[in-house]
């Protein structure tokens, strides 16, 4: 159950409340209510525990669906859980797939560790234990709208599961005052905790980009608290070379009071997942991009060495690839200088080194003329009579040539125009964009239906804000443009099912060409930025000095794109089946497509949907 305390700090700090200002004592802790809940949970769990494990081992566990709408807080009984069951994973070769359990202790337990065994099938094939990653799901304090929304409701404070940590002490949570503290290190090696749940104007000196923040490299011993649940998150990385079949292993949860040996079963499917392609055209890619703040230049500006900055960026990019975020927006060359160009190209090299998609690049080349140019009266002249922005050629076509030299090929590059332009600014980009098109580049713009009155013909990709629909997609596709969505919702909501649906199947079945949301990684650890601004921190991940901390919503994002990959494979196989012209095969193929198009993507059970897709795929693969 969520614990919420109304702390009216934010409003006061921003001068919104002209009330008498006297120091106000903190609200009383909700210990009595929490204690009553714990007692009720202890009684309930003990009643279910016929084997007496709670007493003999000191804790019990429940297997739970990792990606779901259920907010698993410390006092939330897992209604959807299986007591003392097995962790089960169904995954394709090369796929990452999550599993989860919650632990419940009768008394406080110190120093719990997790040990995973190798997995083996009945034919002697093995998957090493290192392919199973374990993390603690950290519950921390976020704003009142947390879990659901990217808006702030900054006067509310609520406990929400979000971070996936190796060391649960990276963040300390004061549940009485409802504050978060982040462990940071100074260059001299000393460390301390920073308050990271204060209003935005208090964010001094909390800057995730410049503070030295490190999570442990692997899961550290953790504690269990009496009468509370703690969630563990496992990510199975199935090797691309793994043989299909049923593998068995164990996950041991080792406490001083006893050990639980949790069976781990993995069904490795006999196929790899393809690149995600669109629903409306199997030859068109479903692009997976996002805004982000991962900039080599920024890391250097905040004092990191070149080596550390590059390592940080590389780790972040590798994590993106592993989460299916294969084409994050890059850092375009924006100000003419050899050093900046070198940094931009170096960033692109690191991007390539991380295995990200170099066939299609987003925001790798500048598409935004500066404001003075856009605002100039000459912009109302016919295009042919207009000059180009200063240094436009060098920043765009010149840099494009550098990129081609670096990559050894000619990628498709979408240059991003003025963000959320008014219609005047949109029109005033015409001459600059025409130059881009004449030089083999493409244009992407944040947009909405009004663009169809002022542009459209010169926008190759439009990123709709706050909404998406098959009807909008149909309009843009009719003249060859592509469409995606952002802010529907923005990043921020922790609910992994919501994130999975809105970046995956719902968008896919609305015939979108991908997802380009705002944004994967800002630099804020503080959620309490909302006052006049009224937004939460936009994050799928949180920055550390050597990479970032993953979250359950970013896991939801990975599953979103995996859903699209499964749907793509289903469609590819259905097409093949139909092409055999054997009536039974044609029926099977058409039935699969018919089922897919009738999926109620805004509200269906996505876990059931995944398994059903797998069933269709296995059936279609078996056709002759």
């Amino acid at each position, binding site marked *: 159950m969520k614990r919420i305390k109304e702390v009216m700090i934010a409003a006061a700090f921003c*001068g919104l409340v002209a009330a008498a200002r006297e120091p106000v004592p903190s609200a009383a802790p909700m210990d009595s209510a929490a204690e009553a809940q714990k007692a009720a949970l202890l009684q309930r769990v003990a009643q279910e525990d016929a084997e007496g494990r709670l007493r003999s081992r000191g804790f019990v566990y429940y297997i739970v669906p990792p990606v779901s*709408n259920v907010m698993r807080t410390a006092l939330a009984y897992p209604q959807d859980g299986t007591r003392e069951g097995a962790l089960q994973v169904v995954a394709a070769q090369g796929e990452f797939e999550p599993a989860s359990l919650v632990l419940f202790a009768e008394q406080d337990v110190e120093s719990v560790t997790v040990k995973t065994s190798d997995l083996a099938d009945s034919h002697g094939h093995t998957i090493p234990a290192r392919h199973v990653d374990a993390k603690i799901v950290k519950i921390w304090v976020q704003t009142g709208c947390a879990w659901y929304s990217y808006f702030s409701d900054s006067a509310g404070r609520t406990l929400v599961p979000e971070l996936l940590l190796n060391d649960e002490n990276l963040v300390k949570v004061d549940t009485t005052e409802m504050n978060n503290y982040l462990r940071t290190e100074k260059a001299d090696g000393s460390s301390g905790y920073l308050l990271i749940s204060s209003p935005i104007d208090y964010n001094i000196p909390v800057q995730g980009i410049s503070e030295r923040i490190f999570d442990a490299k692997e899961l550290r011993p953790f504690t269990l608290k009496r009468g509370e649940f703690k969630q563990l998150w496992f990510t199975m990385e199935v090797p691309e070379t793994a043989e299909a079949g049923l593998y068995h292993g164990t996950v041991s949860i080792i406490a001083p009071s006893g050990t639980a040996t949790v069976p781990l079963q993995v069904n490795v499917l006999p196929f790899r997942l393809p690149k995600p392609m669109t629903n409306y055209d199997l030859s068109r890619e479903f692009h997976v991009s996002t805004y982000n703040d991962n900039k080599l230049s920024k890391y250097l500006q905040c004092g990191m060495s070149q080596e550390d900055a590059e390592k940080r960026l590389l780790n972040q990019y590798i994590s993106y690839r592993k989460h299916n975020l294969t084409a994050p927006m890059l850092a375009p060359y924006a100000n003419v200088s050899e050093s900046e160009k070198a940094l931009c190209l170096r960033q692109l090299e690191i991007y390539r080194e991380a295995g990200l998609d170099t066939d299609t690049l987003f925001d790798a080349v500048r598409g935004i003329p500066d404001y003075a140019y856009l605002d100039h009266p000459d912009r109302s002249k016919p295009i042919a009579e207009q000059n180009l922005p200063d240094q436009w050629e060098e920043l765009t076509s010149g840099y494009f040539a550098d990129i081609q030299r670096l990559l050894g090929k000619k990628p498709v590059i979408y240059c991003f125009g003025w963000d959320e332009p008014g219609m005047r600014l949109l029109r005033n980009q015409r001459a600059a964009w025409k130059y881009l098109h004449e030089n083999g580049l493409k244009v992407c713009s944040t947009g909405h239906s009004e663009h169809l009155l002022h542009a459209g013909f010169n926008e190759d990709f439009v990123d709709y804000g706050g909404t998406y629909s098959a009807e909008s997609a149909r309009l843009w596709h009719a003249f060859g443009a592509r469409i995606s969505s952002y802010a529907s919702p923005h990043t921020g909501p922790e609910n992994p099912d919501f994130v999975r649906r809105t970046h995956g199947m719902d968008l896919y079945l609305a015939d979108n060409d991908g997802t380009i949301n705002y944004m994967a990684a800002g630099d804020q650890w503080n959620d309490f930025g909302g006052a006049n601004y009224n937004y939460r921190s936009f994050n799928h991940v949180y920055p550390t000095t050597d990479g970032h901390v993953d979250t359950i919503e970013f896991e939801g994002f990975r599953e979103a794109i995996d859903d699209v990959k499964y749907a793509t494979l289903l469609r590819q196989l259905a097409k093949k089946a139909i092409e055999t012209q054997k009536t039974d095969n044609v029926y099977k193929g058409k039935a699969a497509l018919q089922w897919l198009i009738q999926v109620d993507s805004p509200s269906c059970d996505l876990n059931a949907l995944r398994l059903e897709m797998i069933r269709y795929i296995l059936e279609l693969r078996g056709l002759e």
Partner: protein
Amino acid sequence: MNSISFIYRIIIAVVFSCVLGFAQEEARPAIDSEAIYQRLTELFRAKDYKEIQKYIVELKAQHQFAAEDALLLSLVESGIRAESDPSRLEASPKTDLAAETRNKVHFKTALLFMHSRDYKIADALGRTVPPLLPYYIIDVVSHSPIGVYGWLNSDIVKHADKRESRFMPYNQEAAAVLYTDVNANRSGMNVTGKADACQVSFFVSADPYGISIYVENRDDKVDEVLAGLQTGGSLEMYLQPGFDHVYYQWMANIYPSGTEVYDWSSPNEHFRSLKGRLTCESAPTPDGFGVYMFIPWDLFYDCLPTEESEWAFGVLPWTRDGGFTWGSGQVHDLHKFGRLKFRGLNSMLPNIKRMIVLKAWASFQKALPAIQSFWNDEIRGDQIFAKEVLAPYVETLQKEGEKVSAEMAAETVEELFRTMVPEWNEFRYRVDTLRTAFLKKQLFAE
């Protein structure tokens, strides 16, 4: 004469003292606030409290201050003396400064203590008394009025105590950045306009069928709005059935009628969308426009209120003259919106549950044929699943449905509400859960 002379001497002495005093004041140079604050910031970063105290003593001896600076120094001294224990903070000194200015000084002082990571002092210095939230007491009755004209002619609107019109102007700084919210459609609304008074008032009622909201918007340009020459404005609405639950947001046009619903979760077993469930109607009235909204109880069947419940309720009218809010909340500021409470709920609860049971049974029956047809289909479905898993489950649900009638006994209502309503309402999700387990069993069979 002597007394006059005495008084005269006193006046002379006072004037002399004042002149001397002024001269002394003039002798103490003023220091600008920026310089003080900059120096204090440096010292707080170093957490050198002794040096800060010394600096303040020197400042006081050598300079004169503006009232704001004097308050800031006083708060700093108090904060340091408290030694990280907020309970030892002294009361804020009395000052003639405006409340808003005092708030800013507190804010700046708290910021200094953030620099020294003295968080508890910073937190305490930054707190203020929260504004009182407005409450609306909903009477739960047997029949609420229906539609704009039903409400217009009802007794409820004649009662001043049922009329809620305590709106505040929307925070102007916040309104100026509302354009960054690409989700909600406020186009055409004058969100940054500054009206003198809000012309909107509202009423809320509940009955066994649901919650009814009626909004009156006084408007002197009815004909222009009807013709489409002027915008009628809109109402941005929020409702959260307890802070543990997903909140609802929707936009209702004042005129012409129209709504947009914004979901902050995907529909699932624990959340039902307002889309398709919200009734909204608007119409011209003698004084402007009326907007009627109705939300059925089945949306909240798993989180029905009690008489102790407080539901956050946001009403943000965007009118031609500007924006307003009930409570002090900006968009999505659930904790600053007003609250709804329910009076007379207990006596009406059995009737509310009866309607929910009837609707849940109907919902199940409506969903059943398509699901049965699909799974029983030789080509499209899975007849083993249909026979071995689905059929026994459906049989149970149908059997319990035999107890349903409009005349059910109260005990039956209570039993079905508790045991069967979740099954009937969430039938499709229950089938998905069964299907997931069925497929997993196959996938993990040796």
